[in-house]
């Protein structure tokens, strides 16, 4: 039988075998040694030159934004087909969505509302991230020049641990009126995130990586995270590494944000810092976040807002979702289409200054999308 094995820990396996060699039969060796499966890379679904991508509209403003993405792709000629999956509260819906994402490898999603408030139903967004092991979330916060904002020329990359930390969702009521919630930090996940961060910094020519933590209070958990990043920083001597406590970091962000370049942190702090930086740049409607795992990637608006208050009123800002779609195209390798749409977005926002109400303008979402489509059609270079 062709046993496909990639030995993750050859030394340990060897030790077990050598220790038991005298007593283990061939049968035992085959069945009692730990089963290590080969993990083959699932091919990104490419049928007839067109990629298939799962689309999870989510709730609130999700569905309308997805409609805009489709329209823009139609006019840009991007070779992407969308497979729409709706998620309700049933576990079967969730499983179907996960199978679809595993099949396609890439997904674009809005924020999914979990209607039930009971503690046994895990938040749908968290469930998707945990099941697919999307261990890192990258948020590249770049200021748009034409958008009114308190701070100008910000260029910060926020890399946040996406699966564990405070979002482990392990809670119990030990005594009546006393609730314990666990925050889990593991070496392997911290390791992966730190390595991803430094590789990202190296690939994109970034000079400084800052680890954000609260290790003076949570000595073991954040201490572990901090030590792991310091350890990995030693492998990259050309990149400067320092660390900062989260309270000080928030204070510095509101007064001097230009001192930060790449920031690594755990889940909750990532949520806080990404929202603060999005606020500094101009709003929740501008940035997109990329969730990466070993095999899958999911793209979504940066601040995970459902926007139920503005759903259906045609005032939602479509830029975040469109940026997410551009990131997705880059990930799939369609760089020309990605650049085309990106340039159209920048032209609309920065030069023509067509802004939705959350940025202080008066345009409707459909106006913004129409302008972007016009810019695409007028562009000098088109792939077809």
């Amino acid at each position, binding site marked *: 039988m062709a046993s496909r094995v990639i030995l993750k820990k050859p030394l340990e396996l060897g030790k077990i075998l050598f220790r038991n060699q005298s007593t283990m039969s061939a049968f035992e060796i085959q069945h009692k040694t730990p089963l290590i499966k080969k993990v083959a890379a699932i091919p990104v679904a490419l049928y007839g030159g067109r990629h298939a991508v799962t689309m999870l509209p989510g709730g609130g403003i999700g569905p309308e934004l997805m409609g805009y993405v489709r329209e823009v792709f139609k006019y840009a000629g991007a070779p992407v087909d969308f497979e729409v999956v709706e998620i309700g509260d049933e576990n079967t819906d969730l499983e179907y969505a996960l199978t679809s994402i595993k099949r396609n490898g890439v997904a674009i999603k809005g924020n999914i509302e979990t209607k039930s408030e009971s503690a046994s139903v895990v938040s749908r967004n968290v469930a998707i991230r945990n099941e697919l092991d999307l261990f890192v979330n990258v948020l590249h916060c770049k200021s748009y020049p034409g958008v009114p904002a308190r701070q100008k020329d910000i260029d910060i990359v926020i890399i946040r641990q996406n699966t564990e930390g405070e979002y482990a969702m392990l809670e119990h009521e030990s005594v009546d009126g006393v*609730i314990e919630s666990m925050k889990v930090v593991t070496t*392997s996940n911290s390791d992966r995130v730190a390595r991803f961060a430094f590789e990202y910094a190296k690939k994109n020519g970034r000079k400084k990586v800052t680890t954000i933590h609260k290790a003076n209070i949570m000595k073991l958990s954040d201490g572990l995270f901090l030590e792991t990043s310091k350890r990995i920083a030693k492998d990259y001597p050309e990149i400067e590494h320092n660390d900062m406590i989260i309270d000080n970091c*928030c204070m510095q962000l*509101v*007064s001097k944000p230009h001192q930060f370049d790449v920031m690594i942190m755990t889940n909750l702090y990532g949520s806080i810092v990404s929202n603060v930086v999005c606020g500094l740049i101009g709003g929740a409607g501008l940035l997109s976040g990329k969730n990466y795992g070993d095999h899958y990637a999911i793209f979504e608006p940066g601040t995970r807002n459902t926007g139920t208050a503005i759903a259906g009123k045609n005032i939602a800002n479509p830029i975040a979702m469109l940026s997410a779609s551009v990131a997705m195209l880059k990930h799939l390798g369609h760089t020309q289409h990605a650049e085309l749409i990106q340039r159209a977005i920048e032209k609309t926002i920065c030069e023509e200054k067509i802004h939705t109400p959350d940025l202080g303008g008066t345009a409707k979402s459909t106006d913004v999308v129409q302008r972007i489509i016009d810019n695409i059609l007028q562009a000098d270079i088109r792939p077809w």
Partner: protein
Amino acid sequence: MANFTKSFLNNISRTLPRLRKFFDQLTDKKNTAETEFSSASKRAVGSRLYSSEVKKCTIIPGDGIGPEISAAVQKIFAAAKVPIEWESVDVTPVRGPDGKFGIPQSAIDSVNRNKIGLKGPLMTPVGKGHRSLNLALRKEFNLYANVRPCRSLEGYKTLYDHVDVVTIRENTEGEYSGIEHEIVDGVVQSIKLITEDASRRVAEFAFQYTKENKRHKVTAVHKANIMRMSDGLFLRCCRDMAEKYPDVKFEEKYLDTVCLNMVQDPTQYDVLVMPNLYGDILSDMCAGLVGGLGLTPSGNIGLNGALFESVHGTAPDIAGKDLANPTALLLSAVMMLRYMNLNKHADIIESSCFATIKEAKFLTGDLGGKAKCSEFTNAICEKIAAASP
């Protein structure tokens, strides 16, 4: 003769503890009044004071610039003729009889006696195995709520104008319970504890504070979409308390939304109440909005008293050079006066301080000026002398 009966009774009660308790109850009525002090809304400490009576307060000068700014505050208070007698204590840890470092008992007794304290910046020495002083004080007086009002100062321009936010944070439990362990090699678990009692106490304090200071809205900041049970409990306590105060508006917002909106438009928030970790981060962020920790007052309210402090560092590089800015400690002292219901004096001192900063003639180095600490203090004293009748 009276001596004989007293010593006779003493001897009997020493051997029979129940009898002693009975005698204590008879003779020491003041003690019982103090032990009844249980909920925030009673605030027996504040209401026991009459403005004509001179009240003793403990002042902990601290390290670095601490002594200078404490002296400045005391001078200003003397100029305003505030009926307070200061009792200065030193909290440098000393080696106790059991060999462990701890706060000297005299300091603890002083604060226990006076119930109100003002603390300057303390330097926490690294290593040497002594407990954090802040933690020790917090446990000693059961300080359950930390209040930090952040207001834009008119003379000091930041990117944000008209900020007027108060962050009230739970001070004892939450993520800072300190319960951590390594279950398996490479996996660390930290426990966040939320109890109904603590949440209810801080919620009640928040609404009480809002009502007394004539504020309009309380916002509960939480993350109950992720931490359903823990933040859910906190939220429930806040909601229950909101029903008891119908004239105060109550809303609940997610932490992400609050962060996002706070950075764009801080004027939409009034009073924020939240568990420990979010409170720590948000209060520091709000301090950053108005100009940093050097200008923000902070107060810790407890069951057995209150401790007001300045949250900035000891600034050892400018210690002793008369360059320090006493604003943070001064505003904390003003908070202390309001807690003691000495509102008239509080208003005079506060307005003089704001007027001095607005005038911008005597500003210390961190505010962009060149004046010395003593000049700044004198300017405030002059304004107080002009303002008081």
